[in-house]
């Protein structure tokens, strides 16, 4: 099964940095909607990732 290298890198980065990101999000003094800021960032990244795709590739 061919897996895009960028995707593997993204998964790797996610696993490596998830404790640090979790720490940042759930710091007790932070605003309650901070997880949503990260979520929005993920949405933006996903949008950027898919915008240069080819016509119906199946």
């Amino acid at each position, binding site marked *: *099964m*061919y*897996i*895009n290298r960028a*995707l593997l890198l*993204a*998964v790797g980065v996610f696993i490596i940095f998830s404790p640090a990101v*979790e720490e940042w999000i*759930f*710091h*007790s003094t932070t*605003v*309650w*909607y901070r*997880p*949503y800021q990260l*979520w*929005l960032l*993920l*949405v*933006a*990244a*996903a*949008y950027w*990732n*898919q915008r240069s*795709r*080819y*016509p*119906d*590739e*199946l």
Partner: protein
Amino acid sequence: MSFSLAQILLFIVAYLTGLFTVAYLADRGIIPERITRHPATYVLSLGVFAGAMATNGALELAYSYGYSFLLYYGGVVFMFIFAALLLLPLLRLCRVYQLASLADVLTFRFRSPRIGAIITIAMCLTLLPLLALQIQAVADSIQIMAGDAGNLFAQENRQDGLALLFCIIITVFSMLFGTRHNSAQERNTGLVTAIAFESLVKLAAMFVLLLAAVYGVFGGFDGVEQWLHQNPQLGNTLNHSLHDNTARTLLVLFFAGAVCMPHIFHMAFAENTDSRDLRTATWGLPLYLMLLSLPILPLTWAGIKLGHQLPIDYSGLALGLEMHSTAVSAAAFVAGLSAASATIIITTLALANMCLNHLILPSRLSQIDPERNIYAQLKWLRRTLIGTLIVAGYMFFIALNGTQSLTQLGLVAFSGTLQFLPGVIATPYWPGANRKGLMAGLATGLTFWFFSMLLPLASNFALPIPDLLGDGNTHWSDAILISLSLNTGMFILVSLLTSTSADERIAAEICSMDDTSRPVRRVLSVRTASEFSAQLSKALGEKTARVEVNRALAELQFSPDEARPYALRRLRARVRANLSGLLGPAVAHSIIERCIPFQQGIQDSTEDIHLIERKLDRVQTKFTGLTADLDNLRRHYRETLHNLPIGVCSIGDDGEILLWNRSMEKITGIAPRDVIGSLLGSLPLPWYQIIGDFQQGDSHSQLKTEVVGNGPPCWISLHKTIAGTDTEVRPTDTVILVEDITELELLEKELLHNERLASIGRLAAGVAHEIGNPVTGIACLAQNLEYESDPQEIRFTAVDILKQTERINRIVESLVNFSHAGSRSGEVNLEPCNLADCVDESIHLLGLDRKARPVEFRNQCDRELVVLADSQRLLQVFVNLLGNARDACDSDGQVDILAKCRGGDVVIDIQDNGCGIPPDMQAHVFEPFVTTKDPGAGTGLGLSLVFSILDDMGGSVSLSSPLFEGPHPGTRVTVQLPRSSYGDAFEA
């Protein structure tokens, strides 16, 4: 504030009528396609994932597990953001093989109808809690709206009748709009648009609740912050809960739900018509879910602040009641209603398709009357199943008595479907997995799930679960982890210990490749597209078979009289895929294998090069790195092959034409697209005969073959080689090179003619002299005759004149014969020829050249020897060879012509005592324009023509030199021709 039951009923009916209207308008095309086909509609329809668990259950999750409630959405978000990991490979499989459910995919991968049946039964069982959850959310909401919140769980006061009515309306909707198309893979536009509409309604309602909670309860967002500061224990709950191991379990649970839940699977794959829509969903669905989850925390906190007595799941309704706001109550009710109805509709539709394809049809296909409309029968079967499933969900809800929270029901349902995750991951990623492993894993995992999760829902039974996480209060989390571990462990262990069938290995290869088909060239038992219909009619009935075959032909843009093996293989695959969408992969496989089988006993490991090329051409832009380099290399070699100035065609063992380059098109006038994939027998004459005979023959080359067709004649040379090295194991292809030598042949003929004319020119002076002698003699005899009166003398004189005239005739006839040789459009007229006579004639002709050296020709050929040749061409051969021999000799030279029989041939040696031929020249003397004579003394075409003429007549020529020591080494030219005779009658 409360509502009467009539008002609530009216409200439900009004909402569902609105839903019907949207679906109807979309189906009729009144809502324009730019809306119904817009990617946003597809993305919103995926919002079906957010059922009552999202609008109600998430509040309880947030209350109990803090930020962990986000994992309910996070699992799906990760699944879609990383769609390339699982969703895209599954979408490819589903699109190519018309698979519409998880059971279809796993049946296809593990090649077992039993797998499909097991998964369908397990799926129905695991989804009963999910259906009950939706119905309970609506029933409880009705109860609360009716002002009976205090007796929510009191059986005697429950408004289950309205919940039943809700189920009936939902059933009618599913039946009407979910079964409009015969194939589960065809998009139900009305249904998709209605579900997208429900997602919008759900989102709008949740935002109304968000505003009501923030501004109605806290007085604004600052109020929320202030309240949180005043209640720091809530902040701690929010943060610390996510550090629990339960959070990881929830993430896995909802991650699996995104692909294992049948309603998500159905919307994501079965209703998808364009992979670009799924790409849009990779960011669109996370965005939608983010917006949908935004109100959850403020709503939960509002519920806590209000301190209402209702379960926290219904904080929205409590908010409306506390605020005495009809709008807020209605928004909370609509949010739950839209979420529940969408989930029930799609879940039951997906389950009905699974039940039909994997339970009903495999066992009762024979009971479907092929003579009646098979599509209508299937539609009604599907409708019946939808009704049955909704009733089953309702019965389960009744059996539970509303004693379970929505979250509990959701966790049981999601943990049930989680058991399919190992199989789903193995489909694209583990070719070693087999059906025994999958069944063992599923049996273990589902059994544990049944006793640890499902059974405790409806009874007091509780399986003792070890406290894996060490927190003592997350029984469900331990149960989920244990069931999944047991399932995965058994799956891996049994797969490793047991053998995998060949069928499974092929399917595994298909599923684990980027490309979704394994192009193998096999020979079908049917020869034309029309035979497909006849064969399929045995299982589907005449009308349905014809419709399905015509549909597949139209989709592939093939003509109804298609007969190319390559096209028929594609047609078979397409019919199978379409039937898979209609009847499920197991039944489709069974019908196709039975009605349109491949021929047995024929080796089938040859790959379908043409199909591979087509697929590579379509996906080439995706390649990167070494793969892209390899693909570029492939393209380079293919272009080289196609642009070769020599014709190249490749023919499989079964006679299928695999390659036909542009030069072949130029030579034969047959375009590659018309012939690739066809059988050799479909080539028009004379090409079928020429190429077919050559392919079957033993010879590896065939020089100068004349092609006589409708157009002007042409000449080709053929060469062949066998492709592949392991010829004993695999069928092999024959590569044939076709060289167009028409121009060369015409040039050669022209040169032959010119050479002959040159010879005639050289002979002309001798001819004039030769004719002059008898003419002088005749003149003298005529003068004498004038004065002769004796009749006897006159008679003698006349006889002499006639002799002289005959001599002239013979000279002229020789010259005419010689000049006509080969002028009859290249036709070789083989007939028995007396060798010695032919040599004599040649010597006589050469004798006419008075300027030539007077050498001695000694014809020592047996007068009885007869060869099979064209006499006039043979004359040319001897004139050229004897002329060369004479030119090589001095004035006292001698040329001997000897002949002997060898086997079925006659070998003629022409031997001289001339100057010989240098060794370095001997290999080239038969090439055109090569001569040993002085410049201007010869054209260099003589021996070339001799070679060409003898080759035409099936003979050969060779030479050896020197023959003797000394100044006259001499040369021997050896001609070999087939022996012949004038027939028995003549011999006698």
